[in-house]
């Protein structure tokens, strides 16, 4: 369902690129063009927002939306190839200088176990011990109804979700190298769903058939993520070279300050306020 939505969003993004310049060729010369590249996680949201923005601010701007991954977005904007680089990860020390990361939304990451094993809660030390591989048995996890070895399911190294999990939950602790790696959120959910000893982490959307573990005493829900009580939340950024200016500034302000924008974000993500 989410994938379909995202595909729809991507298609409409492509359509935007093609249709918008064609529709108003006369006005195009006077109009500013905002080009974006980067995170594939942010892209669907950016496309939905851009479509709405065009309907409220008719003929005031052109959009071009490309993808490629957070690192591409950051590299592109640093080199001046695009106006905005989309990023689903936080700034890295190795990023080029002079970049401004404009936060536009949040996305919650939930810890999950099998329905047969409703772990009542876990804190960061617990997550580090389990995913780091120092606690390998469910008997070492307080409140677990299972016994035996813990089956961990994580994402592949290239995944942005993996990057966010490492930073938010694990800090500097390395993830257990024997953990099963899955290529998507859906595969992690499926693996945990069919394995009573399983544990993994997924985006909030993929939690319908599994048990969601409260993290540091706070259940992983959209509401708690919105209120800021749930801390397992990653950020979506629009990165600019130097502070945003002109059309890009108005566009980012519109995303962060209008009700219309936060309504779109709230359908699948967490608005800033």
């Amino acid at each position, binding site marked *: 369902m989410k994938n379909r939505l995202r595909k729809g969003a991507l298609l409409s993004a492509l359509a935007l690129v093609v249709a918008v310049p064609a529709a108003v060729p006369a006005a195009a010369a006077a109009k500013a063009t905002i080009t974006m590249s980067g995170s*594939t996680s942010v892209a669907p949201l950016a496309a939905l927002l851009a479509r709405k923005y065009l309907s409220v601010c008719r003929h005031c701007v052109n959009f071009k939306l490309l993808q*490629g*991954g957070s*690192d*591409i977005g*950051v*590299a592109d904007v*640093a080199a001046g190839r695009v106006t905005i680089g989309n990023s689903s990860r936080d700034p890295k020390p*190795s*990023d*080029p200088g002079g970049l401004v990361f404009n936060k536009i939304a949040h996305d919650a990451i939930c810890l999950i176990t099998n329905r047969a094993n409703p772990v009542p809660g876990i804190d960061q030390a617990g997550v580090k011990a389990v995913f780091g*591989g120092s606690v*390998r*048995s469910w008997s070492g996890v307080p409140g677990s109804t299972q*016994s*035996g*070895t813990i*089956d*961990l*399911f994580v994402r*592949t*190294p*290239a*995944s942005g979700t993996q990057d966010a999990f490492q930073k938010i939950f694990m800090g500097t602790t*390395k993830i*257990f*190298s*024997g*953990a*099963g*790696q*899955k*290529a998507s959120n859906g*595969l992690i959910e*499926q*693996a945990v769903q*069919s*394995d*009573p*000893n*399983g544990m993994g982490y997924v985006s909030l959307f993929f939690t319908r058939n599994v048990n969601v573990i409260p993290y540091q005493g706070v259940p992983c829900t959209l509401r708690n993520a919105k209120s800021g009580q749930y801390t397992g939340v990653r950020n979506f950024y629009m990165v600019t070279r130097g502070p945003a200016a002109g059309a890009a500034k108005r566009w980012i302000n519109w995303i962060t300050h209008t009700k219309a924008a936060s309504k779109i974000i709230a359908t699948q993500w967490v608005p800033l306020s």
Partner: protein
Amino acid sequence: MSNHGSHNAKPKDRTDQRAEVALGALASAVLLLIAFMIVFVFSKAWPSFAHNGLAWFGGGGNVDEQLSNIFNSPANPADYVYTMHAWPLLYATALITGVSLLLATTISLLSAMFIVEFAPDAMRRVLQPVVRLLAAVPSVIYGLIGVLVLVPFVGNQVITAGQKESVQYVIQLDGTSILVGILVLTVMITPIMVAIVTDALRAVPRSWTEGAAALGVNRWRALRTVGLRAARPAIVAAAVLATARALGEAIMLSMVSGSVAFAPNPLDGVTFFVEPARTLAATVVDNAEGLSVKPFGQTIYAFAAILLISSFFLSFAGWVARQSMRKYTLQAR
């Protein structure tokens, strides 16, 4: 009449000429495309090989950690990380492909012999279309059955808590395993081999086996000593085709054989079979998300280059094998 005939023949010749040129161009285009593909893949892959040298093919360290480090390379091209010791992936590819091929060859030879020589007509009429149908089933369907049925079954019923505990600090046994990978891959490639070998056995001249029968051997022995021997080039061709499909199988193996770059250890005894492993093709598919990070993309292309090379060697080895068998076979007549 003859005049009419020659009048008719002239445009026909021109049609032939046009066809010849068109088909020739198409064939050259295919060759060019292949050449371009090879150059492209290798030029993309080169930095990964160049930075590691022969150590690329060796073991040492954890492949997943190496991939992760490559992915998190600093932005400056001079600081790109390339360290990769791909042995566990190569080993997993050879192990899963090799064992599946052995199983598939045995099963397909026996069942083809049965279909050609022993099966009752009614049974044969059912068996042959079913085998062809199975050969055409898309691999992702096998993958789905594997991940939804076989993997949970192996994980929850076959693997014991003791086995899991015995290796729990090294590797996780969750059902995704070389056992399931080999089983599903064997089921996938066997029908192709059965279909080809059946045709080949049927093409053996009746007089040859009848000659054997006239000398007093039974049907089983005639088939084994005359039929199978004559069909050997076709059997090699079938094996090459099946191996090619097995080598390139990515989605299904990524789903069922475990996505950990782990080298299963035969010294673990029975546990060996339920340990996970990840083939080259599955690694490429799993990590396609990171292709845009330059050194990471180049490493992925290096995996692709190895697959490309192995399929060339495979075709070449098949050709050599067929050449050396020619004297026993139909072509030798």
